């Protein structure tokens, strides 16, 4: 009994939906528990049998975070730093990736090896010499100190990924513009960048996440409460003797919402089929 085309499509669709639902339980299940814990009291988080919604359901943990001016400052700092890092890293990395993807030049392979392998040194061992360097440059406890640090950590990633994306795009596209008499920069900005938007967005989001979530250097390179970031704020809730479990969860949720919104806003770049269309011509 052969399936009709319609039947096959329906079967495929149920397969896709089934797969998506299973995957969603794996992906979002733990986060659901986190969300539920953020509304509980600290005892209920550990009670047995566990319940998703408990008697003392409340927004207390959120109120505690949102009414604390110190914590709000952490959020501000994190946005500022992660935002600046994302923009600057993308700007710098796109140009570097362009060079790697489209040009042949002496030293290219060596530079590539260097850029790939510098990120392999465990950051924890760099901490001490790095700290000395940042103090020496007068960047200790400043935004530029954090921003430049995160750029150094995100650049290799961004360059490697952007080079990868640009390599998937046909060389003929930008070569054509250059041969037309325009310069390399025009080719990059007018041709490559517009069709690399999905790649740029995904690299940008990840760069943002790296900067947003970094803890060790944020703590070491800042001193005053006014300079500290969200991951430090979360860690401050994990005290020497006890944890503020529900506030830890609430603060993490609060931190993730804006990024999630950003992702939702930008995801049209993943689905528009914009590049596919333009490459096709």
């Amino acid at each position, binding site marked *: 009994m052969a399936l009709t085309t319609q039947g096959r499509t329906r079967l495929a669709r149920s397969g*896709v939906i089934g797969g998506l639902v299973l*995957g*969603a339980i794996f*992906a*979002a299940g*733990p986060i659901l*528990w*986190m969300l539920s*814990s953020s509304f509980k009291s600290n005892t209920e988080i550990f009670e*047995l049998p*566990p319940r998703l919604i408990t008697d003392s359901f409340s927004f207390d943990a959120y109120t505690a975070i949102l009414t604390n001016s110190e914590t709000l400052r952490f959020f501000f700092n994190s946005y500022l730093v992660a935002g600046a890092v994302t923009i600057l890293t993308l700007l710098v990395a796109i*140009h570097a990736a362009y060079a790697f993807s489209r*040009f042949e*030049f*002496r030293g290219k392979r060596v530079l*590539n*090896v260097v*850029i*790939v*392998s510098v990120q*392999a*040194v*465990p*950051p924890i*061992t*760099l901490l001490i*010499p790095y700290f000395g360097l940042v103090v020496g440059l007068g960047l200790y406890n400043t935004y530029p100190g954090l921003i430049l640090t995160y750029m*150094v950590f995100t650049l290799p*990633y961004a*360059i490697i*990924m952007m*080079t*990868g*994306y640009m390599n*998937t*795009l046909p*060389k*003929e596209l930008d070569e*054509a513009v250059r*041969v037309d008499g325009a310069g*390399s920069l025009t080719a990059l900005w*007018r041709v490559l960048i517009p*069709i690399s938007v*999905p790649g740029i967005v*995904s690299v940008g989001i990840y760069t943002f996440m790296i900067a947003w979530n970094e*803890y060790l250097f944020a703590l070491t390179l800042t001193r005053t409460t006014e300079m500290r970031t969200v991951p430090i704020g*979360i860690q401050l809730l994990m005290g020497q003797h006890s944890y503020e479990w529900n506030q*830890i*969860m609430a603060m*993490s949720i609060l931190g*993730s919402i804006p*990024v999630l919104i950003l*992702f*939702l806003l930008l*995801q049209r*770049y*993943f*689905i528009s089929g914009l*590049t*596919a269309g333009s490459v096709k011509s």
Partner: protein
Amino acid sequence: MSLRTFTAPDPETLVKGSRPSTKRRQLRRAGESYGFLAPTLLLLLVLMIVPIVMVIGYSFQDNVILKSSSEFTGIANYVTVLTDPGFWKATGNTLYFSVISVAAHLVLGLTFAMLLNSRLISAPSRAFFRALYVLPWLFTAAVIAVLWRMLLSPNGIVNFMLDTDVEWLASPQLALGTVTFINIWAGYPFFMVSLLAGLQGIPQDLHEAASIDGAGPVQRFWNVTIPQLRPIIVSLLLLDLIWTSQQFALIWLTTGGGPIDVTEMLSTYTYKLAFANYDFSLAATAAVLVLLLSMVLAVLYVRHQKARD
């Protein structure tokens, strides 16, 4: 300027170029390349290469950092680290942890990206699932560790739902598998989002052409999708391998390298040398060894890049 105009010239002349002064052009282009790379190189030189060189320097001395009496000791530190069974145990664990994590990241990331890219379901549901699937990405390692410690504790929700009382993290037999699982969960969105972006770059006509040639969905996947994504996949594998082998916070905050030494990684091993033993020379030595290992990876990657051209 519209995109359409770029298609005009004949591809043959484009690739070969028709100008006589090739040499001068190459020189100019080398200069241009370095112009594009200048900001990157400046930043990396000052803020990355300098500290790395300092770390390499420490690895050849003893009593570094705080004591003023540091002495050049040649390769003594390397001998110490390389003859420490703890180092090899950590290397083995790190390999297991990284290879399994990266393989699972690729499989899950690609599967989810394909599912999310499927045109069989409506755009709004795809958007909804996309949002759910990136969730593990949005949290800092310390929180992921705390969350999974709660979920997996002997009295936690996972044991409750499975009706078991397994010590997922505290059992020497299971701990390494468990931390690997947590890392898989925390890391696949990186592959998923990057591949999702990569899928958008695959020209639709390639699929159409393959369909006309009678290729089914499976053949199209292997013959069109995978080859088209290869440059991205290679970059992802390389980055993820390097990052996973450095994963520190997740392991330290869930198991601390224990029970006994079953989840000891190179990262926790190095951390303990630096901040529990205060032996910064040995920590630097371990770091340099990790750097050397990944330079091998980097060379392979660059070779691959070149072979591709």
